[in-house]
């Protein structure tokens, strides 16, 4: 059992084992033996191929499913659906992007200081905007559901081979890296690894630009071993030093292209992981790929990501062998995983906390509406996951740590925005996106009273959003923030966009009444159940269903509509159904997949 693995006993090593559920890390933080970890029974779940299994597969291999896709998946059968997800690629309309030239420093020096700054500002603005547009394109791909597994893998690799706008000042390099990831997302890990060590964004991000003969910088070599290939405990400090030497000279030229600077490359003899020779970067990759630890590390990271639970050592070993036998090809690996009964065990199904991207993209998928990418991206960023800005080289920590008191409420608010029942300023007023220096309205004197009357959270609901100052006037101009606040600046942009979208009158093209009627749901119970099933990624427990039914019945009665006639009440029924949808998407259940 994994419980006894010594490496779980300390925080540092425990974390590096991969993406374990947050509580494990928490226990480990306390320096406590993880003896209370539940047994990882890989029991053979009776493999019934039903709607629950299909939805689970779509949740993990993609970003959720529409009811029609679930029906089709059940009919197709397990093998055929897995085969299709793994092998069927769709042609994607490519995104046009260009290398944006950094102003030539020589020419720049001729200019007065003001103009120098202006030129640099122009470059940054153009570069930043292009990345923002690309991010929008990516979200469209994510939400389209046309090639779910590829998009899932692109996101996985983005958190595995990380690079961030915070360090890669030429943002278009990140577009190039993302394209590289797309090309290899379902190809071979070996090729992706090799390509990453020539990727200009990666070389910049991990300082290999300054990794030179005689004066090596170990940053890339260390992360390569610790995070990209072997995992801690499978190499020595000496290996890191020697690997850094093998990578010397790999940099980029003025145009931002990969270049090996021969005079900066140390072509002396090195000893890495027991092998000696005049190794260069490609030799290093070959040595790494031969390590059993490498196939284990990649297998473990993949299984943990898809299952949301750290796999047992036995299972890792079996998958690692398989991965090596298939030359690190990812398609056979994923096919095996999705066909594995263990992938459908109770411990796994419905038990993973959705990340922010999962949540935003998943809700647009399940609602079946196109949500503007800026809403998906802005929402994800608000909830803590900004694409192209992973918090550190270790990427995002998945699972329960995503949920805080603040993010849980904000997730509901964002769902409410998409449904049209919550205004941007309501959602954003508690966010990192609010960066203006505009004065805030002090709370109205009556509100504390309202808060004490037993409906504290409803105290300010009576206040129409239009009364907020943000609606009436644009945020005051603010001085430039430090670069450490890059997120804030981007956030400010997102906020403006969201307000613009709202002002333009965008509403999600939803018609719950028609949807329910088509599904044959008429009674409160039928409608509430159908909404819960459609909008949640997991099977809701009975008590939750009962509460939603009760809510719906109560609202219907309040509106003086007879049972069974709700869908005939036009706008009134749609408003009630949207409030129900908002509630459902704000539930703790809506955070799971």
């Amino acid at each position: 059992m994994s419980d006894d693995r010594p490496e779980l006993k300390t925080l540092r090593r425990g974390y590096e084992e991969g993406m374990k559920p947050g509580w494990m890390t928490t226990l480990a933080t306390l320096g406590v033996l993880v003896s209370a970890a539940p047994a990882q029974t890989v029991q053979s779940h009776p493999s019934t191929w039903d709607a629950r299994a299909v939805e689970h597969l779509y949740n993990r291999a993609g970003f959720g499913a529409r009811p029609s896709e679930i029906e089709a998946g059940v009919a197709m059968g397990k093998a055929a659906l897995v085969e299709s997800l793994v092998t069927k690629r769709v042609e994607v309309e490519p995104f046009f992007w260009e290398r944006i030239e950094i102003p030539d420093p020589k020419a720049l020096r001729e200019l007065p200081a003001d103009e120098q700054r202006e030129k640099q500002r122009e470059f940054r603005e153009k570069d930043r905007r292009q990345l923002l547009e690309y991010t929008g394109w990516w979200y469209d791909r994510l939400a389209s559901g046309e090639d779910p597994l590829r998009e899932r893998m692109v996101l996985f690799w983005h958190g595995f081979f990380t690079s961030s706008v915070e360090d890669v000042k030429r943002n278009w390099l990140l577009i190039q890296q993302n394209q590289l990831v797309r090309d290899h997302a379902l190809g071979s890990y070996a090729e992706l690894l090799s390509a990453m060590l020539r990727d200009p964004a990666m070389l910049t991000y991990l300082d290999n630009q300054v990794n030179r003969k005689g004066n090596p910088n170990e940053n890339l070599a260390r992360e390569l071993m610790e995070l990209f290939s072997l995992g801690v405990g499978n190499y020595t400090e000496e290996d890191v030093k020697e690997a850094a030497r093998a990578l010397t000279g790999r940099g980029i030229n003025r145009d931002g292209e990969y270049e090996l600077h021969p005079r900066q490359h140390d072509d002396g003899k090195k000893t890495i992981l027991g092998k000696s020779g005049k190794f260069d970067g490609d030799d290093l990759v070959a040595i790494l790929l031969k390590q059993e630890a490498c196939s284990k590390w990649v297998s473990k990271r993949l299984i943990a990501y898809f299952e949301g639970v750290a796999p047992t050592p036995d299972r890792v070993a079996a998958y690692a062998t398989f991965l090596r036998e298939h030359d690190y090809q990812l398609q056979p690996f994923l096919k095996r995983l999705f066909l594995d009964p263990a992938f459908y065990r109770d411990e796994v199904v419905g038990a993973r906390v959705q990340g922010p991207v999962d949540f935003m993209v998943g809700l647009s998928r399940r609602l079946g509406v196109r949500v503007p990418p800026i809403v998906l991206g802005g929402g994800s960023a608000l909830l803590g996951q900004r694409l192209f800005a992973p918090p550190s080289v270790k990427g995002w920590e998945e699972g329960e740590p995503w949920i805080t008191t603040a993010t849980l409420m904000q997730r509901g608010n964002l769902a409410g925005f998409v449904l049209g029942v919550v205004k941007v300023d309501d959602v954003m007023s508690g966010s990192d996106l609010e960066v203006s220096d505009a004065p805030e309205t002090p709370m109205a004197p009556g509100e504390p009273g309202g808060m004490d009357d037993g409906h504290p959270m409803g105290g300010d609901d009576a206040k129409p959003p239009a009364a907020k100052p943000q609606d009436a006037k644009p945020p005051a101009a603010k001085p430039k923030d430090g670069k450490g606040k890059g997120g804030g600046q981007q956030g400010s942009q997102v906020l403006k966009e969201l307000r613009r979208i709202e002002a333009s009158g965008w509403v999600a093209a939803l018609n719950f009444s028609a949807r329910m009627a088509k599904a044959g749901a008429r009674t409160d119970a039928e409608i509430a159940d159908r909404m819960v099933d459609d909008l949640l990624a997991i099977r809701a427990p009975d008590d939750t269903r009962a509460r939603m039914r009760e809510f719906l019945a109560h609202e219907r009665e309040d509106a003086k509509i007879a049972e069974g006639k709700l869908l005939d009440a036009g706008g009134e029924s749609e408003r009630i159904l949207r409030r129900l949808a908002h509630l459902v998407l704000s539930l703790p259940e809506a955070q799971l997949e």
Partner: protein
Amino acid sequence: MKQLDRRQVLAGASAVFGCFSLSASDARTGLRLFLPATGAVGDPTPRTLVVLQLSGGNDGLSTVVPYGDDVYNRSRTATRIDGKDVLRIDGYRGLHPELKKLKSVYDQGQLAIVEGCGYPEPIRSHFRSMEVWHTAQARGRSAGEGWIGKLCDAAYGKESTAEFVVHIGASAPYSVYSVSHPAIAFATPEGYRWVSTDRDDLKAYRASSEKSEGSHDGRAVLDRLRGVLAEAQESSIKIRRAAAGYKPKAEYPQDEFGNSLRAAAAVIDARIGTRVLSVELGGFDSHNNQRNQHDDRMRRLDAGLGAFLEDLRGTSAGDHVVVVAFSEFGRRVKENGSGGTDHGVAAPMFVAGTKVHGGLHGKHPSMTDLKDGDLVHTTDFRSVYGTLIDEWLGVDSSKVLDARYPRLAIV
């Protein structure tokens, strides 16, 4: 170890972890051995630390001005502050002319200025240098959680309440990142809530935090999430009620910074057990035409922080509060060609509060022995952190900083 950008946004995990108990009983005892001066978890009036981040790299030489130094006067032109304008501390240095309220706090002996703060092998990237300040580790985020997160771990083990660490402002800094003691973060207290259009919705939302008996998908995790929901509602009410009912004893400026500090005072006054408050003032990256921009920042800093200190003075809560202000780096000694200054190294830190030993601490960095044109730090900033952790909060600083740094007589 941990990183998480959500920390920049909304910081940390949550009380999802609250329901796990320690399996090794001696570990619990161990954590109890060091009962912090901040008091036990339930202490309503613990000692509180307010961490103020000046983002962008504040020009220390324009904040505590060495107006009596020839090198300063020669190195600065557009950004130079004349000796007749500074608020004189002594014959060598004076505060920026806009720091009038802070000067009066200084004169009352409640503002400590720790000169020449920095760290070895300084980094001039905003992001990377901020990481060092946020983790108190040379390796930055690779070294693990934020220093405030580690502080909570050292002081309270696994015990936590949602309001332990509160960040008010645009985005929570990495310093508060912690899995076991996640911070709550909001730009305005009013925004820290679930928005509904109808009271019935709210009632149903609240009810959905009730734990269930039946068996269903992911039940254990679902129960924990329901616990977070219950806590979120409680916390939201506490925070918003604190802000709505607060009557400050000083007038706060009507800007974002003033609002943040007003909310911070409200949280302290509400006595909901908050240990660390984090606030931020941005806009210090002054590469060109620094004077106007920096003067404005100083004005806002003085108005906001001055009001906050005035508000707390004379209250019992105020005696439990210490403010520490820092920036990721100072700026170069020599001005650049566009009336601004570029990224530098050492700069002063401020520590303020009624229990603070005011005055000058540390040592002014040499204006002549520069390294690559930058001031060399004379005090490691971790001496300031360490002193506050040990002496103010009563927690063993070596558990937070992984080392002991020389103490300063600031509290």
